Each structure stands twice: as C-alpha cells, then as structure tokens.
C-alpha cells in the first residue's frame, strides 16, 4: 500500500506488466501492450483535463474582467465545460461549399494530435514519463511544428477568405517565433550536454531560470506566440478576421481546435517548468516520485496562470509589430545571448558554480539592459513629429456655476 502511494504509476505499470505476462504474452508483447494502454489512458486523460483548464481559464479571465465567470452549473460552475462539451457534441457539422474534404477534416485531428504527441517526451516525475529518448528536445520542437500544418490545412480547406488570411498570418507568426525559441533552447542543452528531457531535468541542481533568465524570458514569449494566445492572438482577431482559420468549422470539429489551443497552452507551461524551473525536482522527489509529480503540477500551474494573466491584461499586437518584434529584437537577442553564454561558460570551465552563476546572471542582465536601451532609443527617434498648433481649442471641463454666481 505504501509502495502504491509512493509511486502509483510505476506500481500500476508493474502490475499491468505482470498481469499481461500471466495471460501468456511474451515479454516484448506485454511491454508494448502495456505502453499502448498507458498511452491511451494518458491521451484520454489529457483531453479530459482540458475541461478543467477551460473552466479555470474562464473563471480567472472573468475575475480579471470584473465578472463572475461561469457560476451556474455545479459548485463554482465547475461543470460548465462538461455542459459545453455535451452541447458541442450534438451540434451539426456544416460542410461549407467548395471545401477541400481531406484537409478540412484532417486539420482538427492533426492539431490535437500535434499537441498530444508532445506529452510522450515530457518527464512528469522521476519514474513517470512516456519515452526517455536521446533527442527528446529536438522531437518536441519538431512535433510542435505539426500544429502549423493543421492551421494551413484548415485555412486552405475551408474555401473562405478570412480563414485563408488567418492561416497565412498564423503560419507566418508560428514559423517566425520558432526561430528564437529554437535558438534559446540551445542554452539548456549547452548547460546539460544532452537533448534528453530527463537529463535536462536531472541536471538542474540550480534552476536554469536562475542561470539564464533572459533565455527563459525569450523562450516564454516565443512559446506564448506559438500557441497564438493574446497578445499574439492576431491569427484569430475577431475584429479583423472574424475568427481566423476556424471560421467555417462547427460542432466538434471546432471543438477540437479549442481543445488543441488549451492543451497547447498547458503543454508550454509543462515545457517551461521542465526546462527552466527544474521540472519535478524538489525536496524528496527522487525517493518519492509522487512528490515530484506534485511539484511539477504546482510549477506548471503557476506558469499557466502567468499565461492566463498575460492573456487577460495585454492588448493585441499589430501584424507588422509582431513580425518586427520577432525578427528585429528576439532573434538577434537570442543569437547574441547564445554567443556570449557559450564564450563565458567556456572561459570559466573549472571555476566553481558560485562564480559561474553570478557571472552568467550579470551577463544576462547586461544583454537585457543593452537591448532595452537600444529599443527605447529607437522609439524615441521614431516618435512622430507633432504637426499643427498645440493650442487649438479643446473641450475643457468647467465646473458648474454656483447659484449665487449665476444670479449675480
């Protein structure tokens, strides 16, 4: 019983394995079947988990916007997303005129699959992970890129101008923000010397956000852009493109895009906390894996909260600003950061950790300050010249006259 509480997943895996072996399967077949069952449960669990995410996000966004959020169905409206799920399940699927059948129907499936397949390489605890393989990080980046394919397929298949324009924008944005993301990921890889996610988590005696806060910041921003959330939600700008690439979708096909969006937002929080916040590491996590699971959940929930907070508080970028921000700021900044970090770390080999970390911190701070000075200087020079007379008549507030003044 204690064994089960310490590490339920490994316990269940072992139990399943022995059961399957008991049924007369060969060892290999038993392992593969066990993995398939585990994968099925994990993927279904992830998709069901989205209902909670949607509820939490709606509640929080509601509070930020001074509303209650869902509060009718069940205590605190916790069953609201389940009611929505049932409703969206029995909605009609409309096939727009002139649609391209295969891309149109494959897009929602692919967008969910692209996010779900990322979960296989994320270590949730010391013993709980799908596959621990030596190119994990590269795999995550590559699979994350599949979502872009789904978006362009949806835009093309819908036979709708808004959808196509939204898809163009979305893909341009996603591929652009992939560049700084991939480059900043070099820093955790350099610090650990491995692409395996488990190794990266294991080697974080000091969280990498402390070693390289600027890399963490750039990674966070580009990941939020990858999800296409506010302030980067110009791919589905309601005021310009109605709702972007998924205008023509209805019923559960639309729901799948919704699921993919929320699941992706949570997945980036998982990734961020695994790469920069030490993943499942914490006091006692090695011995009692369930503790590591709890630490990981807390860390990634905090990051997810930050993502929601960002969504609730920042206005949308304009499309050219979004592109400029990436290509003229984030990309050069991440390249410079990688160069300086590589040089500094190599020059400091053999020195103790307590020298290396402050030096890297100062380096990060200096790069950030330099970038900040350059950007503000640029905008100061670019400030539009004032034309016309400043002292033109404007409506001024005049206090109402008192009775005595009016009569006198």
């Amino acid at each position, binding site marked *: 019983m204690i064994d089960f509480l310490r590490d339920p997943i490994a316990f269940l895996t072992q139990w399943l394995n022995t059961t399957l072996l008991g049924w007369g399967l060969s060892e290999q077949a038993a392992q593969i079947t066990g993995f398939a069952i585990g994968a099925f449960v994990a993927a279904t669990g992830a998709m069901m988990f989205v209902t909670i995410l949607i509820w939490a996000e709606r509640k929080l966004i509601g509070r930020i916007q001074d509303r209650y959020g869902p509060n009718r169905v069940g205590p605190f409206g916790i069953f609201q997303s389940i009611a929505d799920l049932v409703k969206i399940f029995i909605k009609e699927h409309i096939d727009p005129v*002139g649609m391209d059948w295969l891309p149109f129907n494959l897009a929602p499936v692919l967008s969910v699959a692209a996010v779900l397949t990322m979960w296989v390489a994320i270590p949730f605890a010391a013993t709980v992970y799908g596959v621990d393989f030596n190119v994990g990080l590269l795999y995550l980046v590559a699979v994350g890129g599949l979502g872009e394919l789904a978006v362009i397929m949806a835009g093309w298949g819908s036979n709708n101008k808004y959808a196509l324009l939204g898809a163009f924008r979305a893909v341009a944005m996603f591929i652009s923000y992939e560049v700084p993301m991939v480059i900043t990921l070099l820093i955790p890889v350099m610090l650990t010397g491995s692409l395996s996610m488990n190794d990266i988590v294991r080697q974080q005696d000091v969280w990498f956000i402390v070693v390289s806060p600027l890399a963490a910041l750039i990674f966070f921003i580009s990941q939020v852009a990858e999800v296409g959330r506010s302030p980067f939600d110009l791919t589905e700008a309601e005021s310009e493109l109605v709702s972007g690439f998924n205008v023509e979708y209805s019923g559960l096909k639309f729901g799948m895009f919704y699921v993919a969006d929320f699941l992706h937002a949570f997945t980036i929080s998982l990734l961020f906390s695994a790469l920069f916040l030490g993943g499942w590491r914490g006091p006692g996590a090695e011995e009692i894996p369930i503790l590591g699971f709890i630490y990981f959940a807390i860390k990634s929930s905090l990051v997810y909260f930050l993502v929601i907070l960002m969504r609730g508080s920042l206005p949308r970028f304009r499309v050219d600003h979004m592109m400029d921000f990436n290509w003229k700021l984030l990309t050069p900044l991440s390249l410079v950061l990688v160069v300086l970090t590589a040089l500094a770390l190599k020059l400091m080999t053999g020195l103790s950790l307590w020298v290396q970390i402050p030096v890297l911190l100062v380096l990060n701070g200096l790069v950030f300050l330099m970038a900040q000075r350059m950007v503000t200087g640029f905008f100061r020079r670019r400030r539009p010249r004032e034309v016309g007379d400043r002292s033109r008549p404007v409506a001024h507030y005049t206090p109402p006259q008192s009775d005595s003044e009016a009569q006198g």
Partner: protein
Amino acid sequence: MLRDWLYIGIFLLISLFLPAAAIIMAALLSPRKPNPQKNDTYECGVETVGESRVQFKVQYYVYGLIFLVFDVEAVFLYPWAVAYNQLALYAVVEAIIFILILLGGLAYAWRKKALEWQ
C-alpha cells in the same frame, strides 16, 4: 533505441485516433440538415465575391526563406551544443563565427528591407 521510436509511433497513432474517433462519433450523433444558405461560404453576410482562395502576399514567402535559413542553422548548432562540454575553446569560437555569419545574414536581410511589412 528502436523500441523508443516504436513507442512514439504507438503514441502518435493513438493521439491521431482519439480526436478522429470523437469527431466521427459526434458526426453520427449530430443532426444533418444542410441547405444552400447554411453551407454557403461565410463572408459577413454578403455573397462571396470572386475566388475564395486568394493569392498570398509575397512577404510571407520572404519570411519563409529567412526562417528556413535559421532553422537549418539550428539543426547544425544542436550537435555542437550537445558536445559543448567536451569541446575546446577553439571549437566554440568556430561555432561563434558561424553564428556571427548568420547574424550578418540577418543584418543583410534587414538592410534589404526584407523584414519590413509592406
């Protein structure tokens, strides 16, 4: 090693199957009453003008090219980053020169106004 990829294949199949099964199930459960007005392409209430599959801006193509350069670069840099701890200063400087050449390429694209949204 190969076993890992088998597992990933299984996971990929399952994660493709789950949403597909849900959509098929919903399609069987949901009503189906199409009519020409409902199925028409949505364009803010007016009838669609011209071809729906519009041409894309050439700017997207330029961004795609720049992206390709940097993504290929990243693929070159990852093995370097993995081997970083065993490398001598010389090899690190070489990679840095490689990155600086790329930064030069970015500066060139910038000067040529390829990064300007028109």
